[in-house]
């Protein structure tokens, strides 16, 4: 089982870097992972807004929202989404937000 370490904490992640134990998520984790998802520097407010949006949605409905909904609810378009998360919402945003790994439709 791969692990990453940050600020003295060790996180178990899978091969793709998704958290193995979703309860372990915290903001440092997200920040630490940003660079692997092609995000330069520290996460901006816009990043956090989306990350928290995803987490809230996931907590409320048990699923990740569909992309169209993400865009609508946050008043952004696909272009903006990929600017913020260059590796895409499924791989980039969900990983940082500590959601369970999107499956299936690939």
């Amino acid at each position, binding site marked *: 089982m791969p692990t990453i370490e940050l600020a003295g904490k060790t996180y178990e992640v899978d091969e793709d870097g998704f958290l193995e134990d979703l309860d372990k998520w915290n903001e440092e984790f997200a920040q630490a992972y940003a660079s692997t998802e092609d995000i330069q520097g520290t996460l901006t407010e816009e990043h956090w807004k989306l990350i928290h949006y995803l987490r809230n949605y996931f907590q409320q409905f048990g699923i990740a929202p569909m992309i169209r909904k993400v865009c609508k609810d946050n008043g952004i378009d696909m272009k903006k989404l990929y600017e913020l998360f260059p590796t895409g919402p499924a791989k980039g945003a969900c990983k940082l937000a500590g959601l369970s790994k999107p499956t299936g*439709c690939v």
Partner: protein
Amino acid sequence: MAKSETPLLDELEKGKWPSFVTEIKKAAEKSPMANDLLHQLELSYKDRIGHWKHGGIVGVKGYGSGVIGRYSDRPDLFPNVQAFHTIRVNHPSGWFYKTDALRSLCDIWDKHGSGLTNMHGSTGDAILLGTTTDHLQTCFDDLSEAGFDLGGSGSALRTPSCCVGPGRCEWACVDSLDLCHHLTMNFQDEIHRPMFPYKFKIKISACPNDCVASIARADFSVIGTWKGDIRIDPAEVEAYASSDLNIQREVCDLCPTRCMEWDGRQLKIFNEDCTRCMHCINLMPKALRPGEEQGATILVGGKAPIVEGALLSWVLVPFMKLEPPYEEIKDLILRIQDWWSENGRSRERLGELIKRLGMRTFLRALDLPATPQMVKAPRTNPYVFFWPEDIQQEVK
């Protein structure tokens, strides 16, 4: 001689059909990845079970699709396939290649991956079979350099594909190659950045023979057809008559609408009854040709069985002329995708959504007329909905 390490797979090098095992072995000579694949596959043959873990989400920058992540469940035994992702490369319309283009693909793949491919995947892509995560971006960069791009995966528009059509076939009623290329170029964003409830496939066959199995495998099927009379060349009919083709038995008797008459000299087609099945034309290509007013039927909803059973695409627009710049069809696709994205549940294909909400809702949203061509037969159940404007509202 040393005992083979792959005795089971070796069995599949025997026989007349070209062997995929030989292919893997060829690649294995150069690539440790291919070599580990070979041995992991041998283990699968022994265990009768696959040895890949579930899923994998990897990709390249700026794209949400085009790569299928894959990890071995025995990285202890096969470290070189610990990660073994495939890259879907969008093929040129009709799978035509000049050898230099193919060779450049090979060069890139030898540099970055296992040296194994699928020519092609069922959707249509050239599949580059197996590489590690850190090669993905560089491989993609090299592909771009060489003029190639990735195909679709995930909840995206998938790589459209088409039959050879006007490139080689006398029956093409639409320019399948051009339309396919045009749509692919037009919808790059939809292919590379998943934004739909689920996958969406477009396939184009230039005549009802449907050589790209569009009706069975596409959410949006474009199939060429014609209006007006089948063109007959009487001289060639006579030639067939004196060949070993039995026109009555093999052609007329098998016409599904029985709309042909053959008196031994003249072939008559009652075109108003013809349903353009292609059978007679298929059998007498020199004598018969599709009518001159050509275009396509648009059908929607085709898909494989998961979740609610397989669907074959259904007639939506009986006839559409298709000429560059293809505005009408592009607009239709956009409106369909929009309705679907707005109403579809996660992992719900277009056909399933139409099934759930009803054709009438779909037609109304698209502002398309209902026509008898859309159905095999009208409904048998009396569960008819009326629109509010049909009903007298004043009462009670």
